[in-house]
């Protein structure tokens, strides 16, 4: 059953990479209810910043950190200028972030051009497990994703910042009454989400070709990951959602063509969504 183990490892790697890509979205969506359609553009920016860093002669890890910070900064600016005025209208934030996505993608095209860019893999080797070979870099990124998710969970459940954020999620009005600076928390969460997207884009960049549309590939998948995962379930939800979208695509592909597998997974996501209809944002019915 070597191939079974192989499938399992593949599904795990795919799940974790997808989870990494979706985490920033999960944080923003889950905690402050913003459907950040700009997430894909943030991912793309992260990848381009990393490429630019490497071009400038920086070591990979430094480039990754700078990319995350840079995208976080852009997220912060957008929050200050635009998003913060629309938190009470989730639908408007959805459209605004979609507009952001359009604009950022165009700016990337103008600034970086449209050629395929390429970040060399910092860990080119592979690890062998019996007859299964695992790319070292993918493994490292997957392990990092696990650490990142646990870290976020720790931040959320074992620190005072986390307590405040959770209070905010559960009851916005009372959180404000308790003297929490709701506005600042929102800004921090949005910035964190952007930085996480930038980080994901940076870490994914050595696996993929970098072009202005790289984030699109992950955008819709990430959305389903987060929606299926569920509100505030940053650790469990993202992993479960990633497995349903990414892992099941791998499994379905065993029995059907890749295209059919992808179509089935999206259809399945729609069906699952129906049974968690108001799941996240829907608590407020007024």
């Amino acid at each position: 059953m070597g191939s079974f183990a192989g499938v399992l490892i593949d599904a795990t790697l795919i799940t974790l990479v997808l989870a990494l890509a979706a985490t920033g979205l999960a944080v923003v969506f889950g905690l402050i209810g913003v459907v950040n359609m700009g997430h894909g553009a943030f991912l793309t920016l992260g990848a381009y910043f990393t490429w630019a860093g490497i071009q400038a002669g920086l070591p990979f890890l430094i480039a990754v950190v700078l990319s995350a910070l840079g995208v976080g900064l852009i997220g912060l600016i957008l929050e200050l200028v635009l998003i913060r005025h629309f938190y009470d209208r989730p639908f408007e934030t959805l459209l605004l972030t979609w507009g952001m996505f359009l604009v950022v993608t165009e700016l990337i095209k103008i600034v970086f051009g449209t050629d395929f860019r390429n970040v060399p893999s910092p860990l080119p080797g592979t690890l062998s497990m019996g007859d299964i070979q695992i790319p070292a870099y993918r493994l490292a990124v997957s392990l990092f994703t696990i650490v990142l998710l646990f870290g976020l969970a720790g931040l959320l459940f074992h620190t005072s910042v986390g307590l405040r954020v959770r209070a905010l999620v559960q009851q916005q009005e009372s959180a404000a009454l308790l003297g929490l600076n709701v506005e600042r928390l929102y800004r921090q969460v949005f910035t964190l989400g952007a930085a996480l997207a930038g980080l994901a884009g940076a870490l994914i960049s050595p696996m993929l070709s970098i072009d202005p549309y790289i984030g699109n590939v992950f955008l819709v998948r990430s959305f389903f990951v987060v929606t299926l995962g569920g509100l505030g379930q940053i650790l469990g939800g993202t992993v479960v959602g990633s497995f349903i979208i990414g892992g099941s695509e791998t499994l379905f592909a065993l029995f059907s063509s890749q295209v059919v597998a992808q179509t089935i997974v999206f259809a399945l996501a729609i069906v699952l969504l129906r049974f968690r209809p108001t799941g996240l944002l829907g608590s407020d019915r007024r």
Partner: protein
Amino acid sequence: MEKTFGRVSRRTALKGVAGAVAAMAAPSVITKAWAATPIKVGVISPLTGAWTVYGKAHYSGFELAVGEINKAGGVLGRPIEIVVGDSKTEPRIVVEQANRLIRQERVDFLAGTFSSAERNAAGPVVAQSGKLLLYPTWYEGQSQEFYPGVCNKGIFMFGPEPSQQVWPHVDYIMKKHGKRFFLIGSDYAWPRETNKMFKEKFKELGGEVVGEVYIPFNTPQYESVLRDIRNAKAEVVFHSLTGSDTVNFRRQMHAAGMNKDIALWTVDDEEVVTSGLGPEVSAGTYVSFDYFMTIDQPNNKAFLEKFRAKYGPDALVNTVGVGMYNAAHMLALAIAKAGATDTAKVRDALGGLTFEQAPQGPVRMRADDHQAVLPSYLMQVRNNWTGVNDMFQQVQALPSVDPVPAKCKLPL
């Protein structure tokens, strides 16, 4: 490179504005240097959208040739004028642009479109308007099923089809690397047709297809495919993915350490894509096309000199750019031969015409099915290459390969 392109599009932009104004006001404005009215050719290139990467080479190939023709005095004493249309890599936009070029700009000929889908979108327009379309890209061959996108007497193919791009090299690769081939391609007509033709030849030579997979566009992760390849104990991967997927797949295949014991043969990754892959990932890969920048051909040296003089030392050109270049020159030759610009005469003149100065070596346009007789090269990517000049090592070269006859009602 960027700068050059920016200049080009600004110029075309001005031309567009001027054209729009002048077309209404005074036609004489454009023709200041020429006594005769120009022959207008509409060029539809993917200047924005998903295939922008190919757009530069695509457009500049034609532009370069037109510059040469005009410098040499034009055709029939008339200059050639390009009117550009951006396809946005969208067949829907190609329909708009092709109609605009023909009906509003009143071009005499059309050249370009990049993908088969784009060419097909232009097909009905060409058929209805009775114009010619010169198509530069490697493609899946012609069959009556897709009329009027192919088998259209108004469309000429300047790129290779699988019997030219693939067949001549199957034997070599099998002998060198083994008979167990795994086929992977994007899920659409070109890869499927290419693989079908590939298998035709392959079975004849006694090879074994151990797997055949088609991947949807924009697939980011390839673990399961790579596992299948390994489990199938493939010796060669025959690869016809396109766009960013080709890069994604190959980077992940490389990361999985599979390049060491499995040979890879791609029919999609010319200079532009290989540059995007970088030397580590691409080293050792086989690539086959009718043209490479590094082929050892006297025509090519002269061509590259002119190309680099115009677009800078780092500019990339590829089979598509050269296809467009040949298209422009052969059009001029055909017009000269016909002594007129009317479609029927030029069509007849273009059929059977040979262009001796083609960068890849002499190219002949077949009269009965409008497919080009082209050279075919098999190249291997060098280790640690630093640029297009040392990117490919020539493995096999055939000076002239006849494509299989188009599956159309012939003659077209």
